[in-house]
């Protein structure tokens, strides 16, 4: 085996009573792609933050290239050739690519020299690793996939030999993710070392050479990727067997609950995002909408749920029209039995600064159950929240805790509990398991199927193709604002992938 690029020996780190990392030993071989998986809160990010100098370990030793290293700040890490690409990009939105790359690494008081130097260096890096980006583009005008490339370029420009990527595909479309993986492979071929932190097991299987699994602050196993399976990794992560694909019976579709006809929606800039879309959802079925993010799914959800106004078309709920022109009141739609789990739970579905029980009535705060005249019925609200916490196994089971302090999976359960427990006739769900860990995904999928079996009409929009395929009774594929095809759940990933890219083989064959 090649020489170790990084060795972590006996790393411990506590925050108060929580031991985020205990006795971690890890060896990362030079010139490999090493995956680190674990649920949210397992200690992955803490460990990498220690390596990158954000935190100091309470005890333990770091060796870089065989030499003992003391990493007190990110600058120390950079000097040792360690670069990091954060989950949330650290870019200045209104600067150009070039300006961002040299930010903090300017070689001269005047920018001109640094920029000239950076330009030639950047061209070399782009050539070498296939990282094409226009150096003069403004960051905010670039798609996220390219923004991430800029982050990688930033690290390489600073001479990184070891590149840490924290949940790099969370914001990427499948195609962008594939491109990223090609780049990472190229980096590996050039002798760089890549550390990939993720909770998506498919990515681990697809690209890594070695994988380490963390659970509750400890390193539970390290495996050679080709000698392990997704099932084994999932079990190691969660500590018990996990069903990756939910089991469900045949759908018994009933009456049409929601009928969308010739719906057209524009975004705030006036660009048509949803273009003349029609479909029905029947009671007792789950309809999945697949598609690469940004092809109009978000706008479709917002229009149906009354948050965004539509330009033309109609939506019928239980045979009666929804007012789409005057920006229908989402509260009125709730009264009519349409529940909505929004894609963005942090800013839309929840108020993170609220206590858990306050979020459990968001949107239903007009319900007389929760009120005494103009006053909130605090006891009723808290008891109701406690019931939902018990029923949906939300942890920690504390309805007075600030919502921001729950993990992603538990936050999503708070939203789902709120919307499902209203017993709606139609449930529309955007990205049901985005940023949610494996254990909670299984729970959420089971709940959605249970809703279907109770005879509800369920619409699921997700960029996770696996999720769509495992949940849906019918799959609609959206591309560029239009529905480009409908398939059954037996459709292959390749077939759906082509549709998502705007290529229809059946049509092509005709």
């Amino acid at each position: 085996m090649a020489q170790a690029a990084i060795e972590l020996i006996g790393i411990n780190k506590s925050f108060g009573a929580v031991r985020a990392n205990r006795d971690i030993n890890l060896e990362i071989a030079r010139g490999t792609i090493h995956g680190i998986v674990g649920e949210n809160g397992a200690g992955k990010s803490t460990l990498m933050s220690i390596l990158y100098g954000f935190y100091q370990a309470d005890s333990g030793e770091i060796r870089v290239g065989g030499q003992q290293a003391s990493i007190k700040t990110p600058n120390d890490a950079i000097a040792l050739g360690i670069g990091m690409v954060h989950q949330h990009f650290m870019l200045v939105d209104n600067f150009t690519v070039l300006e961002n790359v040299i930010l903090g690494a300017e070689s001269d008081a005047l920018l001109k020299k640094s920029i000239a130097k950076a330009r030639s260096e950047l061209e070399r890096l782009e050539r070498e690793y296939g990282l094409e980006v226009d150096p003069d583009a403004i960051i905010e005008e670039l798609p996220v996939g390219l923004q991430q490339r800029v982050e990688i370029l930033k690290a390489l420009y600073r001479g990184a030999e070891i590149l840490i990527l924290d949940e790099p595909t969370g914001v990427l479309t499948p195609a962008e993710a594939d491109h990223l993986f090609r780049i990472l492979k190229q980096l590996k071929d050039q002798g760089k070392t890549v550390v990939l932190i993720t909770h998506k097991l498919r990515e681990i299987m697809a690209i890594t050479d070695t994988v380490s699994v963390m659970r509750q602050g400890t390193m539970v196993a390290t495996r050679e990727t080709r000698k392990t399976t997704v099932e084994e990794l999932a079990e190691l992560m969660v500590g018990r067997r996990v069903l990756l694909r939910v089991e469900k019976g045949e759908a018994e579709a009933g009456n049409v609950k929601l009928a969308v006809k010739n719906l057209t929606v524009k975004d705030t800039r006036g660009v048509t995002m949803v273009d003349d879309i029609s479909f029905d959802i029947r009671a007792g079925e789950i309809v999945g909408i697949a598609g690469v993010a940004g092809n109009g799914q978000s706008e479709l959800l917002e229009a149906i749920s009354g948050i965004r106004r539509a330009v033309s078309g109609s939506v019928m709920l239980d045979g009666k029209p929804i007012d789409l022109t005057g920006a229908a009141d989402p509260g009125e739609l709730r009264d009519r039995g349409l529940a909505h789990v929004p894609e963005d739970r942090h800013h839309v579905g929840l108020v993170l600064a609220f206590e858990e029980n306050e979020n459990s009535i968001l949107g239903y705060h007009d319900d007389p159950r929760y009120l005494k005249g103009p006053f909130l019925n605090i006891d009723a609200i808290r008891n109701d929240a406690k019931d939902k916490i018990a029923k949906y196994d939300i942890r920690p089971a504390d309805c007075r805790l600030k919502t921001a302090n729950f993990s992603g999976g538990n936050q999503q359960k708070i939203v789902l509990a709120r919307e499902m427990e209203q017993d709606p006739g139609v449930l529309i769900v955007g990205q049901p398991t985005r940023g949610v860990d494996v254990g909670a995904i299984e729970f959420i999928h089971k709940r959605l199927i249970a809703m279907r079996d109770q005879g509800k009409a369920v619409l699921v929009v997700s960029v996770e193709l696996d999720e769509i395929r495992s949940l849906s009774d019918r799959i609609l594929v959206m591309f560029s604002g239009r529905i480009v095809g409908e398939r059954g759940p037996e459709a292959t990933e390749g077939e759906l992938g082509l549709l998502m890219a705007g290529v229809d083989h059946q049509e092509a064959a005709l």
Partner: protein
Amino acid sequence: MSTPYAKLPAWADYGLIPLINLFVAFVVAGFVVVLVGENPFRAAIILVEGAFGKGTGIAFTLFYATTFIFTGLSVAVAAHCGLFNIGTEGQAYIAGLGIAVVCLSFDSTLPWWLTFPLAIVAAAVVGALWALIPAYLQAKRGSHIVITTIMFNFIAASIMVYLLVGPLKPAASQAPQTRNFLAGAELPKLNWIIELFGAKIRSAPLNVTFLLALAMAFLVWLLIWRTKLGYEMRTYGHSPKAARYAGISETRIIITAMMISGALAGMMALNPVMGDQHNVAIDFVSGAGFVGIAVALMGRLHPVGIVLAAILFGMLYQGGAELAFEMPAISRDMIVIIQGLVILFAGALEHMFRPYIQALFASLSPRSVGMEAVKGKGA
């Protein structure tokens, strides 16, 4: 990932940190006192004794505090809805007009206990209407509330100057103010409360408006944390997108919150106008609206904190006046510097010491910082 320092126990959050900030403000102010050649310890003693040492001092302190409670609550109500109402000054000033109309009309016919409720309504309505215009512009046209409320302060000041040197001024008078109110528009003093505790009071302006201020503090607490309207305001304040999702009308909530804020600002005018001066004079608000911003921030937007912060600023006003009198080297401007330092450390630099204190707490007793709750247990 969770932050390493998450949460302090409430007593440290709301008690210890403000006290440390206050202490640092006084230490820095002490250096300023040394620079002008006075003894800072003696200055501090004069300041505190001037504010709390004698009955009269206490009464003055609470009189000033009354004013700041209203303006602080006004700023806080808007802030809970995500709106920065800088127009408290102007809303209070123009509300003086409503009070003037009521008092000048009824002071010869009605007793104070009938004039007072009328004046409360008039002050609240005028203050609310003055806040309505910027609120409408924000809700419907997207004009930034900070800009419009600042401009409305100037407009209010100009209108009041025009009225007080013209239509509202008695013909024979040279002073830019209304005629003095008669007994029917003079509010009773509350000095007897302090005398109950054995202190002697010569003459001080503390009056029943203080009780109104405390009642309003309670009502604001009720509004923000116990009513549906308060819930909607907080939702919009934290996340306009979540409010939209929850079916809360943006226009309605902005306008309602700003009108309540304006009404509270307007009620502030009752204290100096009916409780002390018994007329409406030029510039009677004299910056209390802006002090309200500091009071609201220092009080962490909570009515209890606002009452305490208002008393602190009342102390600085009253004790500061005594200090300027006792120590000639310390001028009135020096007092403003000290007040400015308190605002700086307690308001603007509120979070300066927080990380250190949180780190300290985390190392002393890990459970107290709620780390377990933060991490949860998988999911």
